[in-house]
């Protein structure tokens, strides 16, 4: 669905690349997470793939269209949800969706249905300028689904939302993914990527460091640990053991057999920890 080869982009049109020799492919039906801290080049890459930024150097193919000279028809297959909500404040939620709906040549979803999905039906006829940030964001998100996109670009879809709404949105994304939509998710939130994506790519300073599935990454870079709290006499002791090292496994067995266990849980390395390990940088 997406094919990127040797992609470069510079805002200053010199050798200060915001996107530096990036290569990857996203298969049809796949959910791909594009991860990196702010300013790493995520949004620039997405900008090029959605035609908002002109192609400078390299090759990018989106939904079968060459981005060097894309046809407007391509957008019938695409849905784009922006990080910063962008809706007409002077128009109502319904008017906003009705307007954009008419710009597509393909069958679209009834705006009321979408408002229902994102929980905005009760304010369908209110001007968007009166909305809270989260409501505007949901409206932007709903708009990106209008044309039942085959390829869905999501830029930080849950950032800044309260957990309940974020969960709703995640559920919608999972649902669409199951139905076969290809998803290109840009985020710096590793938990969401972990939850939603089949594969993730780490980008930093414009360079794509690695691509793999979250599971593989965890297996490869993660260290399986068990955190344990137990009673030794009147004292509560804390410890953690690796499940991979023989010697520590034996120690853990010993504690389980001889002491009263208060708390015990296995701890997988998070994608965030792996990211730091791979890139040497945090995610904020």
């Amino acid at each position, binding site marked *: 669905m997406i094919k990127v080869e040797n992609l470069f982009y510079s805002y200053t049109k010199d050798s200060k690349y915001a996107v530096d020799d990036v290569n990857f492919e996203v298969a049809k039906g796949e959910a791909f997470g594009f991860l990196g801290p702010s300013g790493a080049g995520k949004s620039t890459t997405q*900008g090029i793939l*959605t*035609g*908002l*930024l*002109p192609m400078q150097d390299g090759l990018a193919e989106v939904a079968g269209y060459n981005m060097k000279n894309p046809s*407007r*028809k*391509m*957008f*019938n297959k*695409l*849905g*784009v949800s*922006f990080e*910063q*909500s*962008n*809706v*007409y*404040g*002077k*128009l109502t939620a319904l*008017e906003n969706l009705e*307007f*954009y709906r*008419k*710009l*597509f*040549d393909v069958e679209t979803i009834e705006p009321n249905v979408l408002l229902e999905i994102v929980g905005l039906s009760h304010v369908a006829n209110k001007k968007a300028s009166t909305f809270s940030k989260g409501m505007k964001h949901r409206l*932007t998100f709903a*708009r990106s689904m209008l*044309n039942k996109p085959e390829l869905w*670009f999501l830029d930080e879809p849950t950032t800044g939302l309260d957990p309940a709404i974020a969960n709703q949105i995640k559920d919608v994304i999972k649902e669409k993914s199951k139905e076969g939509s290809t998803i290109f998710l840009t985020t710096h939130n590793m938990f969401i990527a972990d939850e939603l994506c089949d594969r993730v790519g780490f980008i930093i300073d414009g360079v794509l460091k690695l691509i793999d599935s979250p599971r593989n990454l965890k297996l490869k870079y993660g260290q399986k640990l068990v955190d344990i709290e137990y009673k030794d006499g009147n004292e509560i002791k804390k410890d953690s053991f690796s499940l991979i090292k023989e010697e520590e496994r034996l120690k853990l067995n010993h504690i389980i057999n001889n002491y009263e266990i208060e708390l015990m849980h296995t701890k997988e390395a998070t994608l965030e920890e792996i990211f730091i390990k791979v890139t040497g940088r945090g995610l904020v």
Partner: protein
Amino acid sequence: MKFAHNFIKDMKVSFKTFYIYIEILMALIFVAILLFVVPENFSSDINMYAHIDSSLQSNEIVEALESDNSSNIILLDSMDEIKYMLEEDRNSIGISISMVDQKILYNVILQGYESQKYRNIIEKSLIAEGIKDLPEYGSNTNIVTLASSSERLSDRLNMLPIFLLLNSAFTGLFIVATYIFMDKEEGTIRAFAVTPAKVWEYLLSKMGVMLVTGLLTGLITTLLVAGLKANYLHLIALLIATNLFGTSIGLFISSFYDSIMKAMGAILVTFMTLAFATTSYFMPSFNPIIIRILPSYPMAFAFREVFLENPDIAYIYSNVAGFTVLAALFFLWSNHRFKKTLTV
């Protein structure tokens, strides 16, 4: 079809930002000023302060001086009074007439800012006035008028074409940039850019809003000020062509900038430059080439034709055609530029 949806949405937005109401209100204020403050014709005649020596027959001289209809004659008792009045009224001239050595001496007193050519004209016309009754005087000039039915508009009506030009025709020049940058600011332009709709549909719909606004203000003003003394068919044709032209220039300028603040500067300069054509409109003998090449120059005169009983149809429609073509060219050019820069 997409263009139509876009246009309807833009009209809704412009009604909800009150922008159109402001434009209409402004047209109404202009109408009120024109009807209630501006006199139908303001006397632009200059005052001529004259002192005539008692030895001369003043009645005949006054009659002769008044014959060219260009000034009001005010008789005073002395040269000093003339000088005093000239200082009071800086837009006037003085004349003292006396007999010296059997000849009539006309002593013309000007302010001092008048050009040499003007002085020469005053001198020669007085001489001509003085000699034309001599028996030897031979006049062998005749006057040919090319347009037999040409007419002058009243001073009030004469201001209307300028309003139509600066406000209705150039509505878009002034405002279209604001519309585009407002969409940019709201981010809705990016949302638009990821739909299959085309950039030209977006731009054309903005042009449509500007056109409706321009037509509305132009027609309201004309209807209230000129009533039926205007040819509305020609007016509408001209308004459409010039408004499209103005907006396409506005689009073109906007395509070079990334924020309204920056674009507004260039737009103001363009607008004011084009407004200079009004000087030559009100003073048709002031016609430097630099003003005659401004597009606003023929526009102003074409708008004037609309109010004449026998308008120069060829002139009006050559303007209509010319500016429509130019509008199309600038529109295509802007479209080409915006395709690359609209979302960057």
